[in-house]
C-alpha cells in the first residue's frame, strides 16, 4: 500500500499528481494533514507543495479538459469527503494521460463521477447561501449576516450579494471559519473580526445597535411566513428537507 500525504491545498493536490508521475507510482491513499494513517502500509511519501510542479500539471490540464470541467474540479475540491483527494488525483492523472477524446464525460469512471457528485454538493451549499443568508440592518446602515456553511463556499457566493446589493453596505461572516466579507458600497474586502460582541457570538444584532425599524420588518417577515402557509397542507418533513435545520438558527423567520 502506497500512501501520499499532502498539505490539503489544491496546489498540493496538483503537486501530488506530479510526484506520482515522477515516481511512477499509483498511490492508494492521499491524506490531508489531519487524515490518520492506516496501521499497515508499504510506503509513505510526503508531497511538498511546489508551485512549479503544480503549475505544470495545471497547464496540461487546461489543454485536456474544458473550462467547466476544471471549474467543477476546483469546486468539488472544497468537499469534506476524505476520499475525494485520491479520486481527484485519479481523475487528473487520467485526464492528462488520455489522448484525443476528453475523459470528463465518462461517467462510468468512478473518479469522473466523484468530481460531478462532489461538485454538486459543494455548489448546492453555495446556492443555499444565496437562499438563506438573512441580513439585519444596524443603526449605522450596515446590513449584517452570520452564516455557518458546511463547506468554505462564501467566496463563491459573496459576489452575488455585492452585485445585487451594490448600494448597500453589508457584512457576511462565516462563524466556523472565522472570516467574512465587508462591502462598503464600492469595495468588497475579506475581513477577520476580533470583537466578541453579542452579535458576533449569536449572529443576532442586539437592540442597541439595531436600526430603529429593524424589529418591525423582522416582525412583518415572521408574520408573513406564518400567514402564507396553508394549514390544511402542513408538511414539516418537506420543509426540513428543503431548508436544512442547520440553517435555522440564523433564519429570521425561524426565531422566536
Amino acid at each position, binding site marked *: 500500500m502506497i500512501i501520499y500525504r499532502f498539505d490539503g491545498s489544491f496546489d498540493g493536490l496538483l503537486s501530488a499528481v506530479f510526484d506520482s508521475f515522477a515516481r511512477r507510482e499509483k498511490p492508494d491513499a492521499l491524506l490531508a494533514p489531519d487524515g490518520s494513517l492506516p496501521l499497515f502500509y508499504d510506503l509513505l511519501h510526503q508531497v511538498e507543495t511546489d508551485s512549479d510542479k503544480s503549475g505544470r500539471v495545471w497547464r496540461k490540464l487546461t489543454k485536456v479538459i474544458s473550462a467547466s470541467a476544471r471549474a467543477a474540479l476546483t469546486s468539488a475540491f472544497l468537499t469534506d469527503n476524505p476520499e475525494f483527494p485520491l479520486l481527484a488525483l485519479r481523475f487528473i492523472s487520467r485526464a492528462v494521460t488520455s489522448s484525443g477524446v476528453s475523459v470528463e*464525460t465518462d461517467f462510468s469512471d468512478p473518479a469522473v463521477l466523484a468530481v460531478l457528485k462532489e461538485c454538486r454538493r459543494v455548489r448546492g451549499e453555495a446556492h443555499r447561501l444565496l437562499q438563506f443568508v438573512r441580513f439585519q440592518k444596524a443603526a449605522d446602515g450596515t446590513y449584517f449576516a452570520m452564516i455557518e456553511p458546511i463547506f468554505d463556499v462564501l467566496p463563491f457566493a459573496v459576489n452575488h450579494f455585492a452585485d445585487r446589493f451594490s448600494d448597500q453596505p453589508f457584512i457576511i461572516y462565516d462563524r466556523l471559519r472565522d472570516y467574512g466579507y465587508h462591502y462598503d458600497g464600492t469595495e468588497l474586502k475579506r475581513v477577520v473580526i476580533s470583537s466578541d460582541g453579542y452579535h458576533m457570538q449569536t449572529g443576532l444584532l442586539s437592540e442597541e445597535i439595531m436600526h430603529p*425599524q429593524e424589529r418591525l420588518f423582522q416582525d412583518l417577515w415572521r408574520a*408573513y411566513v406564518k400567514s402564507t*402557509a*396553508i394549514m390544511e*397542507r402542513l408538511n414539516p418533513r418537506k420543509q426540513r428537507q*428543503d431548508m436544512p435545520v442547520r440553517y435555522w438558527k440564523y433564519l429570521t423567520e425561524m426565531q422566536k
Partner: protein
Amino acid sequence: MTEATLEKLKILAAAAKYDVSCSSSGTVRRNDGKGVGNTVGGVGICHSFAADGRCIALLKVMLTNYCMYDCAYCINRRSNDIPRATLSVSEVVDITMEFYRRNYIEGLFLSSGVVRNPDYTMERIARIAKDLRLIHRFNGYIHLKSIPGASRELVNEAGRYADRMSVNIEIPREQSLKYLAPEKDHKSVYEPMGFIRQGVLQCQEDKKKMRHVPRFVPGGQSTQMIVGASPDTDRDILLTSSALYSMPTMRRVYYSGYVSVNQYDSRLPALKQPPLVRENRLYQADWLMRFYQFKAEEIADEGNPNLDLEVDPKLGWALRHPEVFPVDINRAPYEMILRVPGIGVKSAALIVSARRYRHLNSSHLSKIGVAMKRAKYFITCGELVAPSIADTSPEYVRRLLTARKNRAENPLQLSFDFS
C-alpha cells in the same frame, strides 16, 4: 408603516396563499450599478419554506381582498364574511424593498381582488410596479396578476415593468367555470392572456428593427388550475395545459389542490382534505410533458382519463405499454431512455455520454444514479438484471413496485394517509 400594516399584511398574505405560483425564474435583469437588485438567470432562488413545505421566493400578497365577484371556489368572494384589508401603494412598495434588502425574497408577486372596476384595480397594480422600477430602481423580480376585464392599455403599462404576468384559468372546462363562477367565462381569461402574448410578441418584433426596445414581460406568463373543485378529469386538465403550453409565451401551468374554503356552497364537493396526491400526479404529468417529451394524450388516454394515484404517470404509461420494453441502454435513442421508469433527465444524459466510452452494465447504471429497483424491469444492458416486463406481465411488475415502495425511497411521494 406601523403595527396596523402588520395586521393588514397577515390578512392579505393569507388571502393570496392559494395561488401556488412561486417561481422567480425566466429573466435576467442586471443591476446597472445605480439601483438595487438583480435577477439571476435560469432557476430562481427559493428563500424560505413555509410550514406547508412550499417555497417562498416572492412576497406573495394581495393589494386588497375586497372583491366584487363571487367565484364559488374563492375565499375572497364577496358573499364571505371575512376580515378584509387594503394595502396602500406605498406600503406594498416599502415592504417589498425592505424584505428584498434583507435577502428575504426575490421580489413581489402581486394580485388583487377586483374593486370598483377592473381598470381601477389594474391601474394600482401597475402603479406599484412602476414605482418600484422607476423610483426605487428595483431590479428584482415582479410578477403581476392581470385582472380579468382590464383594458389592453393598462395590461401594456403593467407589462413594461413586470417580469412575469399571469391570469388564472382556475377551472379547466368552460362549462364548469360558468357553473362555479357565473360572472366569468373563458373569454375573460383568454383575452388578457392574449394581451400579454401580443405585447411580448410585439416587443420581440420591435427588437429586430430597433435598438432600444423597452422590456415587456420577459419571463412570459403562467396560469393556474384548481384541482378537484369541479368534476373535470385529469385528461381535461392535461389537454388544457398542453394547449396552453403551445402558446409561445406560456412558461408554467400550476395546479392547486382545492382546499375546501367555502364548505357551505353545495356546488362544490365536500373534501376533507385537499387532493394532494392527485395534485402531485398532475405536476409529475406536467413535468413529463415539458421535459420527457410525453404528450397529454399518452399520459391520460381516453380509456384512463384520470391519473393512477398508486403509481406515478411515467410508470403508469410504462405499465400500459409493455410492448416498447425492454429498452437497450447501450443502443436505444435518448428519447427511449427517458421513458424508462427510474431514469431521470440527468441520468439519461449521463448514460448517453458515458456509453461512448464503454459498454455500460448495471453497476455503472446504479453509480450514475439510476433507480435500478424500478428500472431493472424495463431495460437490458447485456446481462440479466431481472425478468423484464416483456417476459412477465404488467400486473406482476406493478405488484412488485408498489409493494416495495416506501416513503424514504421516493421523495416525491407525499407523506400523508390515504385512509
